[in-house]
């Protein structure tokens, strides 16, 4: 580690995990920077928890290495790693009250009673649980337990905090509040957060960077904007946000832009990978990047309105193209009671510049 870049908080190199003959993780390689809010995002069963448990030390790697601030940690048991975890179901100690739960790690580290008391008080204030100090976990709501779990994991000032779907047990409103709170806690404390979720909205709204995972492999790593705007492959485009995915074929290629044929229509799309003319792939267009108009404009496609679904802030419109393809579009309902689009009406779809993306896989 003699190069100029700062030492990574967590460095994973070709990390793999097999359970018997089932491969849960394959060749995971990436760095998580210090002070970063890093999210592991992926569908259920893709190996997020497994990866987190390997960093925490509950699960041994079957391949590769894990370094924590430059130190190799695979051989260390969980109680020797300067890493703390917020467990999915909190795993609060049922026989201890809030203060004892929060102070447990400090006691194990051999802090003095006075130091523990001071730190616990600080943590309790941080998560605003002042009036619950003497309560047992069973006497608290899910949201309050969640805060205790957070305070307990943060009290020993870990170098890295691991959070396994900490918000999934909360209701929507509370979840949204906690998102903001977690994010600002991370900013204030400067602790590296590794946050696991299968909720793409959660990932987009909180993370500095996201690793999108599928079936034990990392599909793409990037900022929320990166993974949303420039998905690396079909899986990422589909998993993050809504998108229209259409089978397409590359026509003329000009650097980063490619002319795509799909279902009898053609459109100019961006691409990242090397694309050869005639190559088959997928065209991804986000619904909100489509505009519906009545007049033919430059780059617009004639279409007919199919089903419309009113969704409050906006309306989802299915538009059938002449070639047979169907695109979903989203129109903001900026005017109350404005004319709804009528089924069967002829319109023109305009694709925002750079909004169409050609994906090879």
């Amino acid at each position, binding site marked *: 580690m003699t190069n100029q870049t700062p030492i990574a908080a967590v460095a994973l190199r070709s990390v793999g995990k097999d359970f018997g003959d089932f491969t849960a993780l394959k060749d995971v390689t990436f760095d998580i920077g210090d002070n970063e809010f890093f999210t592991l995002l992926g569908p259920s069963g893709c190996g997020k928890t497994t990866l987190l448990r390997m960093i*925490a*030390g*509950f699960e041994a790697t079957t391949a590769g290495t894990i370094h924590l601030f430059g130190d190799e940690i695979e051989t260390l*048991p*969980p*109680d*020797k790693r300067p*890493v*703390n*975890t917020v*467990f999915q*179901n909190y*795993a*609060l*100690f*049922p*026989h201890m009250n809030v203060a004892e739960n929060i102070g*447990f*790690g400090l006691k*194990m*580290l051999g802090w003095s009673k006075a130091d523990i008391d001071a730190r616990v008080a600080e943590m309790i204030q941080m998560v605003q649980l002042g009036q619950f100090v003497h309560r*047992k976990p*069973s*006497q608290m709501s899910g949201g309050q337990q969640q805060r205790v779990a957070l305070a*307990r*994991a943060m009290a*020993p000032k870990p170098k890295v905090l691991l959070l396994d779907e900490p918000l999934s047990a909360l209701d929507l409103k509370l979840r949204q509040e906690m998102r903001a709170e977690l994010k600002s806690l991370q900013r204030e404390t400067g602790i590296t957060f590794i946050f696991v979720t299968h909720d793409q909205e959660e990932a987009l709204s909180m993370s500095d960077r996201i690793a999108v995972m599928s079936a034990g492999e990392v599909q793409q790593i990037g900022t929320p904007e990166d993974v949303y705007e420039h998905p690396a492959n079909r899986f990422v485009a589909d998993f993050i946000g809504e998108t229209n995915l259409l089978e397409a074929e590359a026509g003329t290629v000009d650097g980063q832009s490619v002319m795509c044929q799909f279902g009898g229509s053609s459109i100019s799309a961006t691409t990242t990978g090397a694309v050869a003319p005639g190559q088959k792939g997928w065209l991804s267009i986000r619904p909100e990047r489509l505009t519906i108009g009545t007049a033919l404009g430059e780059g617009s496609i004639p279409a007919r309105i199919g089903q419309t679904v009113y969704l409050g802030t906006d309306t989802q419109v299915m538009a059938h193209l002449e070639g047979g393809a169907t695109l979903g579009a989203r129109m903001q309902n900026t005017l109350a009671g404005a004319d709804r689009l009528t089924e069967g009406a002829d319109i023109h779809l305009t694709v925002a510049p750079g909004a169409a993306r050609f994906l090879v896989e």
Partner: protein
Amino acid sequence: MAAVGGGRTVSSAFAPIRLWLLLPSWLTIGFFLLIPVLLMLVYSFLTKEFRGGVIWEFSLAAYDQFLFDRGLFGDDPPTIQWTYITIFARSIIQATIATIMCLLIGFPTAWYIATRPASSRAVWLFLVTVPYWVNLLIRTVSMKFLIRENGPMNEALLGTGILDAPLQLINTDFAVQLGLFYSYLPFMVLPIYAAVERYNFALSEAAADLYASHWTIMRSIVLPVVKPGIIAGCILVFVPSLGAFLAPDLLGGAKNFMIGSLIEEQFKGQAGNWPFGAAASMILLSMVLVVLFFYARSQAREQV
């Protein structure tokens, strides 16, 4: 068990039905449990009839006999009668040692079974209980046969040259403890198993994550959380051990008399003394109740 605070109450709409559903239990408990105990209480204050049985005449003689020695003809000044107190003390010690042995062996056993894959746990539990399908008397006699001076155990130890003189086990305190331990081990294993099986192992991981060593996790997380199971097991072993008479009779011989045998003797044959047996039972019962009372109170306090 102890985990849920506050306590749930069933909706009052069910109250009338509940009364009817509970009636058989109440009747059974009342009829077969409370009435016999009350009967014993009454008998303990009656006068003894010489060939067993009682004369319906109030008397404190049974309790007096238990506590005081008034000489052969009953007219010496009373001194403390140590015989029975000693038997009680020995019984408590024997039962305590048997309980500790059961706990030391039972906890790892229960832990092992509860941490097996769910599919094989039933088999292990079955194996633990298999010997208990055989009558306790037969098992105790077998144990006597096994450990006696020229029994298979000693023969094996002598034959292999591990020992050069037979182990004198039979008619010792240890033989009684062994017998009690063997009689009641499943009563320790089963409640602890039930508690460990419910234990959430994520708690152990959380503790390890918070820098606790294996030993500390066991001591400050696992044991407190499964404590209700351990206490239930201890009560289930201690109480019957205290009143046991088969193991002390068959394995302990005359020197190692315990309460159970003392009481048994009072109701057996012509030499019996029913009021005295009833009084000894009442004293035993009150001791057990005191222990249970303190346990219940400490539990109630922990709930807060």
